[in-house]
C-alpha cells in the first residue's frame, strides 16, 4: 500500500528527514510516533503529495485512499454545510451514498442528525473532528492515513473513536497509517510502531514488544506517559 524508499528531505540547508524506509503491507497497520519537530508533518506532506522529496521515492496506492488531518478547522470548507462536506467524495467514486449507513455512523460517533444542516463554525472542535473522520471512512477506503487525527479530541471521545476505528479495521480489512505523538493511541490502534526522532527512524518494533525497546529515546517516550494512579491509590 505504501512503500517509502530511502527518503531524504532537505529544508533550508538542513535535512529534516534522513533515510526513511517504510513498507506498509495491505491489511496491516503502522504508527509513526515522534515528538513535535521530529519531522512527522513533513513526512505526511510528502506522502500526500503536497511536497516533493529531495531524494528517494514514495510509492503509494492511491486507489481508495483517505486522510484525516490534525487541524479540523482547516480540513473543512467553511462555506459547506456538514452534509455537503460528507457527500463530497461521493461525486467521484462509483459508490452510492447510503442514508441508513450515515444514520448508523452518526449514532456511533455520537453526532446528532441536526448537525447535518449546520456550518462548520457552529460545531465544537470534537464534533468537527468526528465529522472529518466520518467523511474519511464513509467511502469505505482501503487505506486510511491518520495525521495526528486524535490530538484535538478529549479523552473520552478519543477512546470511543479509537475503539470504533479498531472495529472498522477488522471488519473492512483497513490498512492504517497513523502519525502521532501519542504512544497510547499508537499502541491501541496499530500492530507496528516506528519511532521518529530528529528526522530519523530510531526504532522499529511490533507493538506487543514495546516493553523490550532498546533505544534511549523510545524509553524516554514510554516513561513520559502519565499513568492513571489507580493502582497506587488502591494500596
Amino acid at each position: 500500500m505504501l512503500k517509502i524508499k530511502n527518503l531524504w528531505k532537505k529544508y533550508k540547508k538542513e535535512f529534516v528527514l534522513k533515510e526513511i524506509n517504510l513498507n506498509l503491507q495491505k491489511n496491516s497497520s503502522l504508527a509513526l510516533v515522534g515528538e513535535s519537530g521530529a519531522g512527522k508533518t513533513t513526512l505526511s506532506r510528502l506522502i500526500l503529495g503536497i511536497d516533493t522529496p529531495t531524494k528517494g521515492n514514495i510509492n503509494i496506492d492511491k486507489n481508495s485512499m483517505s486522510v484525516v488531518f490534525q487541524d479540523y478547522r482547516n480540513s473543512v470548507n467553511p462555506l459547506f454545510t456538514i452534509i455537503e462536506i460528507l457527500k463530497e467524495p461521493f461525486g467521484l467514486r462509483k459508490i452510492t451514498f447510503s442514508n441508513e449507513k450515515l444514520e448508523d455512523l452518526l449514532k456511533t460517533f455520537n453526532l446528532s442528525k441536526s448537525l447535518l444542516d449546520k456550518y462548520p463554525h457552529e460545531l465544537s472542535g470534537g464534533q468537527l473532528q468526528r465529522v472529518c473522520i466520518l467523511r474519511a471512512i464513509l467511502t469505505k477506503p482501503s487505506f486510511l492515513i491518520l495525521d495526528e487525527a486524535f490530538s484535538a479530541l478529549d479523552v473520552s471521545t478519543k477512546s470511543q473513536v479509537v475503539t470504533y476505528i479498531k472495529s472498522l479495521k477488522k471488519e473492512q480489512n483497513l490498512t492504517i497509517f497513523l502519525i502521532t505523538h501519542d504512544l497510547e493511541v499508537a499502541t491501541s490502534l496499530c500492530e507496528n510502531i516506528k519511532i521518529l526522532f530528529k528526522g530519523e527512524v530510531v526504532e522499529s518494533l511490533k507493538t506487543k514488544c514495546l516493553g523490550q525497546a532498546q533505544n534511549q529515546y523510545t524509553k524516554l517516550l514510554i516513561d513520559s506517559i502519565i499513568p492513571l494512579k489507580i493502582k497506587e491509590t488502591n494500596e
Partner: protein
Amino acid sequence: MRYLKIENLSIKDNKTNEILLDDISIDIEENTILGVVGESGSGKSLLCKTILGLIPSNLNIEGKITLNNKDILNNSKIIKDNFCVILQEAINAFNPLYTINYQMLESIKTKQSKKEKLKICIKYLRKVGLKRCSKILKSYPHELSGGQLQRVMIAIALTQNRKIIIADEPTSSLDSINQKEIINILKNLKDKTIIIVSHDLALISHIAKDIIVLKDSKVVEKADTKTIFTNTKNEYTKFLVSTQENLSKEFMSCLK
C-alpha cells in the same frame, strides 16, 4: 476559613436562554491544586473565564465568587492582584510581531529598571526548564516550538507573582515528553493555589489534590483524587475513568 469560594454560580446566555453553567459551588483551599475535568463543552473554560472576569457581556451571571470573603465577581482590581492565567494554545497568546523579550517585559508591571526585569525573566525562564534563555528572549514566537512557548507562558505567569494560577488545558497542545515536564513544573510550585482544567484524567490524577467533575454545565462530583479513582459512586465519573483506562490498558499490556 475557605480561601476561594464559588457559590451557586449560574450563567445564562441572554439571547438563546441557554444555561451555560448551572449552580456551581466549589470551595478551594489555599495552596492546593484543584483539577476540573469534563468533556469539551461541559463548561470548564467558561468557569475559568468567569473567575477571571473575561466573559462576553451577553451572558447573565448569578451567584457569588469570594476570595477570603471578599466578592471578586466583577472586581477587576482584586482579580488583577491575585490571579494569573495560563492558556491552552500558546501560539495564540503571543503577538507574532514582537520578540519574547518585549512581550515578557511588557507583562511585568512593577516599577523596576529594565535590567532588573530582565533578570527576573531569565530566572523564571530557567525555572520552567528552558535553556539558552538569552537566545529565547531574542526570538519571535514563530521561531519557538509549542513546548517552548508554553513554558514561556508559564514563566510569564510566574513573573506576575500572584497567589492563584488558573491553567486552562495548559498541556493539551503538547506532546507527551513536554507534557510530563510541564505538569511536574506545575506540581512543584510552592505557595501557589492552582486551578487546572483538563479533559485528561490521568494528568489531573498526577497533580491535583481535589477534583471536580463537570458534565453538561453541572458539577456531578466533588471529591479528592483518591476517592474519585477508588470510591466513586457517580456513573459519569466511572465512565470517564473507564474510557481513560481503555486507552491505557493496551499500552500497559504491551509494556509487559
